[in-house]
């Protein structure tokens, strides 16, 4: 059973999320969580293999954060699809 984890800020919320992610889960960075991509020592590096990381396009653009592979930039439409494709959604904030 896969879970979509949404995170809306860097720091403790991100740390707690990473501890809870299991192989096969997905992580979506929204709002201030996109700043996590600026950190060389990002907690995202600690994610298990096979966990795709997504970023909401308008939140990344609004903050001037560049996104590079393997992180994928997505729209709100895709956010909804990810909610459908995963059996559960957990929000970290």
């Amino acid at each position, binding site marked *: 059973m896969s879970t979509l984890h*949404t995170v*809306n800020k860097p720091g403790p919320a991100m740390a707690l999320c990473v501890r809870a992610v299991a192989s096969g889960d997905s992580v979506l960075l*929204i709002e*201030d969580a996109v700043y996590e991509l600026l950190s060389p020592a990002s907690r995202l590096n600690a994610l298990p293999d096979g966990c795709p990381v997504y970023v909401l396009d308008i939140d990344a653009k609004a903050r001037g954060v560049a996104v590079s592979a393997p992180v994928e930039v997505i729209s709100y*439409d895709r*956010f*909804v699809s990810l909610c459908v494709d995963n059996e559960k*959604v957990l*929000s970290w*904030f």
Partner: protein
Amino acid sequence: MKFALAVYGAPANSQAPQSALHFARAVVAQGHEIVRLFFYQDGVNTATAIAQPPQDESNLPEEWQQFVQAHNLDAVVCIAAALRRGVVDQAESDRYDLPGHNLRKGYELSGLGQLLDGALMADRLITFGA
């Protein structure tokens, strides 16, 4: 698919109501159903009728109300969170002998049980934290 949305942040100091509105529009556009909106903690400020954001900024309470009414959504505002923040309907205003009421039309004050009820009714509960 059935969605329930919970909003925990206020328009003036959190992106939560804006993110939730973007998401809700995408949910409806894809033909899914929103079975419950629940405004909790500072999120109750989304339902006030008397906030006036500057004219060159988006008016999220207004946009949210238009969305709620256009799609005839079940929009619940946590009554305990609302009372302590000064968001009241006519009945609560009368009960506490307050000088007015400011809950926008289309919303209903009710208890936290409605969040649990929404979680049980929906296939997915998406929370937009402060």
